[in-house]
């Protein structure tokens, strides 16, 4: 099998996780490369979660929250939105390509949109190839 990206998704409980569940109940198919971790709100997502995932060899990380005015906690997604550029700046300094880490809004009714986000991201990262950290980790493992 060729290169298959590993993507970690952090989804807020109220909109995006529900939207991903809706993709399921509607049987909308998408590529299996994403594994989802549920948090209550996108505001809970600490930049260290993203760094941890990348350092463990994830090829991509997607953060999904409610659309700007829809956050279950009023303004959590604005907090996530404000933190995101700082995280991106940091990642850039580490040499992590832009396409690997994304912030997307997916509402509870957007099962279709969730599948599109995942497919698009999977395709782009597949084209980009494995992350440098993953290549390194895999090489270390072979040596061992």
């Amino acid at each position: 099998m060729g290169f298959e990206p590993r993507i970690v998704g952090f989804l807020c409980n109220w909109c995006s996780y529900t939207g991903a569940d809706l993709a399921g109940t509607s049987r909308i198919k998408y590529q299996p490369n994403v594994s989802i971790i549920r948090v209550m709100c996108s505001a809970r997502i600490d930049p260290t979660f993203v760094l941890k995932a990348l350092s463990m060899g994830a090829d991509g990380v997607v953060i999904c929250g409610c659309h700007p005015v829809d956050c279950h906690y009023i303004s959590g997604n604005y907090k996530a939105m404000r933190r995101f550029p700082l995280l991106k700046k940091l990642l850039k300094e580490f040499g992590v390509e832009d396409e690997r880490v994304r912030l997307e809004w997916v509402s509870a009714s957007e099962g279709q949109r969730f599948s599109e986000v995942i497919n698009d991201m999977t395709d782009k990262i597949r084209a980009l190839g494995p992350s440098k950290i993953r290549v390194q980790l895999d090489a270390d493992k072979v040596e061992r």
Partner: protein
Amino acid sequence: MTTECKIGVYVCSCGTNIGKMVDCDAVTGYTKNLPGVAVCKSYKYMCSNPGQEMIVKDIQRYGLDRVVVAACSPRMHEPTFRAAISHGGLNPYYLEMANIREQCSWVHDDHQQATDKAKALTCAAVKRVPFHEPFDMQSVPMNSASLVIGGGVAGLTAALELADANQPVYLVEKDGKLGGNLARIDLTSPYLDSAKDLLAERICRVTKNPKITVMLNSEVESISGYVGNFKAQIKSNGEAVTDIEIGSIIVCTGFREFDASKVGEYGYGRFPNVVTSFDLEKMLKEGRVVMKDGKTPKYVTIINCVGSRSGKYNRYCSRVCCMTALKYANGIKSAAPDAFITNLYTDMNAFGKGCEDFYRRSAERDTIFMMFDKHAPPTVSAAGKGEHFNMLVKVNEILSGEEVEIPADMVVLMVGMEAREDSMNVARLVNISRDKDGWFIESHPKLDPVATSTDGVFIAGACASPKDIPDTVAQARATTARILAKICQGEIWVEPVYAEINEDLCSGCRVCNELCPYSAIDYDPVKKRSAIISVMCKSCGGCVAGCPSGAIKARHFTDKQIFEQIEGVLEWASSRA
């Protein structure tokens, strides 16, 4: 706390829902060798009684102290399995679920990849669960007063039901009078009882009931608090503000009608005798069905599904208009006995009790039914000069396959139901979600149809989806059953999942104070530390990620737990490479 954990893992095949795509035996085969796993089984239906009993027995037999269920979404059955393990003597928070149905078997179509992903998700749960901590539910008092927003038939019914049980109600209506859209309706299908009678009884009892405070020309300005203990501000007549305290909120804000002028080919607004169903209701209430020039129409054409079903405007069916159109055939015949009535429909949706009979009776009363394709709607044009009728309706009749021209003096458009223009504001006010069409979303469409994602906030009637009166009333009453059950208990139990500040780590910088959307964080100037008021915290975790000193812990969503999950999904994957 951890390596000595004894974890029981249960992989559900959900009939074939999971088993068809995910090889459950391969998942158990892999999982049983993970550290800490004492027992690992797969079963047809974990949520069934035998499934739950299996967990309870294993807890005792193997001395399990943690349980992982790999099955459907935790949004579906987490409460079920929490109850099961607590029955087995474990703290309910010692459970973790892996979502291998909604987020795996149902969305993937490659067996191998779906099975691999199910392993990864289960592995993440197994790694996370040892770090779960036990919590006891928090008890808070339940205020027995309720706020009902909207005074249509839903709101009136809910208010009465609560007041009859001797509980105080505030009924807030935007308009200057009660009744909502039903007040604009003449007779009601399918039994043709008068809407006025139905409403008069409700309104009369509501206004006389001392337990109900009716607030007309009023709107809810703000809401704060949590289940059992909400505070609301009501603004009346644009100025006077009343503060109220309530334990529950029922949203009954109803619908608005589709704007018929959007459909160019029907000529609403262009031809004076093209009217909407509500225009006709008004005429029927006045007992006179007449054209703009005062004459009685001879040819009346009713067009169904206006704005509904084709997807050009709305894609859903508005549910009541088919039967409403049938009642018009009756009503028009009474007011204008010589009229010829044609009903153009896409499908005749006569699903309700008594409706199929009603359809048959109406068909016997000189109405001609013609079917059209919802994507090829009829057109309305002016009749030629000198004709004895004033409009011409052209329709491709599906059943005969012919293009038919129908003379018309009056065209009645069966406008669909839409979410109100201010539904977004209401949703934000009470903190609930809307679907893609703007209808409020229920907690579960089948099993929990009147509750919402916010505890203590309920929805009833046409604000949740198009609905007829019987369904609206049934929902309104269902909300009150939920509320009365809580009132009877006297106190309510809320999830003990909130954020906590570690005083030793807090530097007193107060960054978190500003971050909390619910003002749940207080600063103690003596100790120079911040502290969270647990019942006010809704556990968003915003302060947790924002604290520069890492002093705040989100119960049940700790950094450690999430790190373990991240490792779980990735470690599994790299062990395979």
